[in-house]
């Protein structure tokens, strides 16, 4: 195989793992997928491959691990230039713009979404929702500028930002159930709403993205688990 041995450690619900799987699918690369039990029992291989963060996703290429979803996707693009379409644009300025928005998606949009979803107080959740809307508004404007009337951030075909945002799609479509409000809305974010539908219809998306209902159920359970753990920790702290 031209690509060598590719193994991906992930979990079905992980948006970060979804990004990597989308990228692999779009490139047409075959790989072995390993579903990790990250809450109960992290595997030896995961702990050995990502000793610093002990998190998924980890892409192991010919035995060498690559961690962090944005880094993994760039790696895939650079390590397999002759296989499948390019993910990042060719022009350095366009690449810089793509990298800027990828960082924004993670540092602003996703971070605020998480606050809206499981902020510790109602106040925090409210602030998260507010900031999440600011972020998605900025992203809507970015989409307009970058797509130039075409279907994707990448133009006629999907590119880096489509993958970066697309990996989050199942969770984002569960926003109403999880954050109390839709993230994409035909009135507020018409371009991104249309993009979300278009992206979701792609073969790669259908193959990789988890069912929204299943994600919502899982997310609610996770949120309850995290809250219970925080309460327990606080109880121990006050006792001591």
């Amino acid at each position: 195989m031209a690509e060598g041995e590719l193994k991906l450690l992930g979990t079905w619900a992980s948006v970060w793992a979804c990004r990597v799987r989308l990228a692999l699918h779009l490139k047409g690369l075959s790989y072995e997928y390993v579903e990790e039990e990250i809450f109960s029992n992290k595997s030896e291989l995961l702990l050995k491959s990502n000793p610093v963060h002990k998190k998924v996703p980890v892409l192991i290429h010919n035995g060498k691990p690559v961690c962090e979803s944005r880094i993994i996707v760039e790696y895939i693009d650079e390590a397999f230039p002759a296989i499948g379409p390019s993910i990042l644009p060719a022009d350095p300025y366009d690449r810089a713009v793509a990298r800027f928005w990828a960082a924004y998606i993670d540092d602003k949009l996703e971070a605020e979404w998480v606050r809206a979803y499981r902020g510790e107080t109602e106040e925090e959740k409210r602030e998260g929702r507010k900031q999440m809307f600011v972020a998605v508004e900025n992203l809507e404007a970015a989409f307009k500028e970058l797509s130039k009337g075409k279907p994707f951030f990448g133009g006629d075909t999907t590119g880096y930002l489509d993958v970066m945002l697309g990996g989050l799609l199942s969770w984002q479509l569960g926003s109403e159930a999880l954050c109390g409000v839709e993230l994409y809305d035909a009135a507020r974010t018409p371009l991104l709403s249309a993009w979300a539908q278009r992206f979701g219809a792609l073969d790669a998306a259908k193959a990789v993205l988890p069912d929204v209902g299943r994600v919502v159920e899982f997310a609610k359970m996770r949120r309850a688990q995290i809250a219970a753990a925080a309460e327990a920790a606080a109880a121990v702290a006050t006792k001591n």
Partner: protein
Amino acid sequence: MAEEGKGEVKLLGLNVSPFAIRARMALRLKGVSCEYLEQDLFHKGDLLLRSNPVNRKVPVLIHDGKPICESLVIVQYVDEVWAAAGDGEGTAILPADPYGRAIARFWAAYIDDKLFPALMGIMKATTEEARAEKAKETFAAVEQLEKAFAECSDGKSFFGGDSVGYVDLALGCLLPWFGAVREMFGLEIIDAANTPLLAAWAERFGETAAAKEVLPEPDKAVEYAKKLQAHWTAAAAAAAAK
């Protein structure tokens, strides 16, 4: 030295901002002449606000009128556009091989996600307890980076090997702030006893032409930290008064 015909380059920065320092050093490593515009972040100027409307932060590289934001994005851009340039200290900032690039990006992200917030947390802490907690986090991060240095440098002088590379820039820009934390709180973030490799690396880094030109003295960082603290205190008071 400077590449001809690559267009007009401006950099909006702040002398003590580690992020701006990265961008300036990258340009210096490539021998790119640029117009440097020091910004007042307490009274943001028009050009900054127009060039980085989303985050309103430095650094911003403006190349032929087109803005590029986020320090690591800028460093990669400079590396790609001025690929063939260099001032004799070494040309490529990121290595050529994809795996080497992934490792370099990983550690730069680690510095931004783990080390930098903890370090700033030391500055921002309002209680001794909180400060101690952030110091602990900072030391833990630096310990990881000490190991990373051993792996990445492969016995050579820098994370990038024989010459200053991506991770060297990502970490080296924090040296004035390590100095500031030493002066303000008596904390040695890196030292010969606990992090011998990084301590030796820091000296070598400081000796490079680019560092000598761009890195400010720690007391500049101390001065700025005091300004920031006054600003944070005022903002907290204003928020509490609401």
